[in-house]
């Protein structure tokens, strides 16, 4: 690797009119019977919800394809406004800002071939985004999970709630701190 990388900087507090887009969390085609909900809260090291974080998700399609598909940010052809997905194509990409109570939610389809959804977190105060994974089930043979002690491992595994809903809280710091990843 010969080219020196461009450094990261914080997303800051004012990305709200630029990065979030309508139906950014509606990754599953509209009304798809296999739709699951992945949701949770982002907390800081004082235990307070983070109301200005941005959560992005990326995952394979149910058939295991990792090619993704364009069309997350479709435009109204008349006004040019972003109106989001067409409710048919599965793009694999989700982007949602946290709400005033730190909550976010993505409705998607189960990923094919793996048991996790990749997650990136951006926030004011965070100078470089963080990666983690939301495992829909605790995968016994998973190399990453297997290398963690049980308490830390638990931070990567979602908690099943009502029908097809999975809870995944992200704790940036302190007690119960989420495992964050560095890709080599």
């Amino acid at each position, binding site marked *: *690797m*010969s*080219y*020196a*990388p*461009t*450094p*990261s*900087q*914080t*997303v*800051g*507090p*004012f*990305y*709200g*009119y*630029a*990065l979030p887009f309508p139906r950014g969390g509606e990754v599953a085609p509209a009304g798809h019977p296999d739709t699951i909900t992945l949701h949770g809260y982002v907390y800081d*090291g*004082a235990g*307070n919800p983070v109301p200005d974080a941005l959560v992005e998700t*990326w*995952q*394979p399609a149910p058939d295991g394809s*990792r090619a*993704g*598909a*364009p*069309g*997350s*940010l479709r*435009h109204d052809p008349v006004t*040019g406004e972003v109106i989001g997905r067409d409710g048919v194509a599965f793009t694999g990409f989700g982007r949602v800002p946290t709400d005033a109570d730190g909550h976010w939610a993505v409705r998607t389809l189960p*990923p094919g071939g*793996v048991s996790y959804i*990749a997650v*990136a977190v951006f*926030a*004011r*105060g*965070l*100078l*470089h*985004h*963080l*990666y983690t994974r939301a495992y829909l089930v605790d995968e016994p043979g998973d*190399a*990453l999970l297997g*290398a963690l002690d049980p308490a830390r491992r638990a931070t990567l595994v979602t908690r099943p709630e009502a029908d097809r809903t999975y809870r995944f809280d992200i704790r*940036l710091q*302190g007690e119960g*701190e*989420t*495992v*964050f*990843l*560095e*890709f*080599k």
Partner: protein
Amino acid sequence: MPLTEPLPDGLSQQEIDTEVAKAQASAAPSDHPPRDYPPYRSSHFRFPRQPLIPLSDPEAVELSGPAFGVTDVTALDRDLTRQHIGEPLGERITVSGRVLDREGRPVRGQLVELWQANASGRYAHQLDQHPAPLDPNFTGFGRCLTDDEGGYSFTTIKPGAYPWRNHVNAWRPAHIHFSLFGTAFTQRLVTQMYFPGDPLFAYDPVLRSVTDESARQRLVCAYDHDLSAPEWSLGYRWDIVLDGPSATLFEEGDQL
């Protein structure tokens, strides 16, 4: 672990400068800012205290990434001066450059997003209460796809500097926020581009959080007279290199 307190409110610029110097002296060499950076007070409760878990797995989903195409941008999205009925106030500029990976290969057909304050230093965001005028003809965000050479180009106006409450008399140097995608989710980048020769560089803990001087310089665009259009706009060039492994790097067996 007992909670520690962030640096107090109301520090002077000189006191923040002292904290910047302390952080600079203790920083490990890195291209990226440390997430634990006390002079940027908002970071205090928002960085993980546990080390990141290294992961080197050629099968990782994160070595692939989202795709974008003609449905995701319009030709007008790259011109921030044409989003309203009238022309925005300010100095019209173009910002152009290339997006590359660490091998120097162009990142093709990927999404570049930017957002910024207006010429007076005010964001079109309800939480920005800086008493500078909003511009009814400027929102301040745009997007485009990179071309076959990794090239991107935006037309906008030069943003103004603005105050913030990190410490007393804290001012951010003029900057444009950028969001970039590579071929892999691991290459995701959100950053800020600065303008050459800004006198506020030395006072800004966000820029100074990049503790390596040469890395910091890579956040500053270059004035490029050949990119200036006669009687129309001033041209700036800024090339971007995305960090992080990708599937193609693994395929080629490169040293990671």
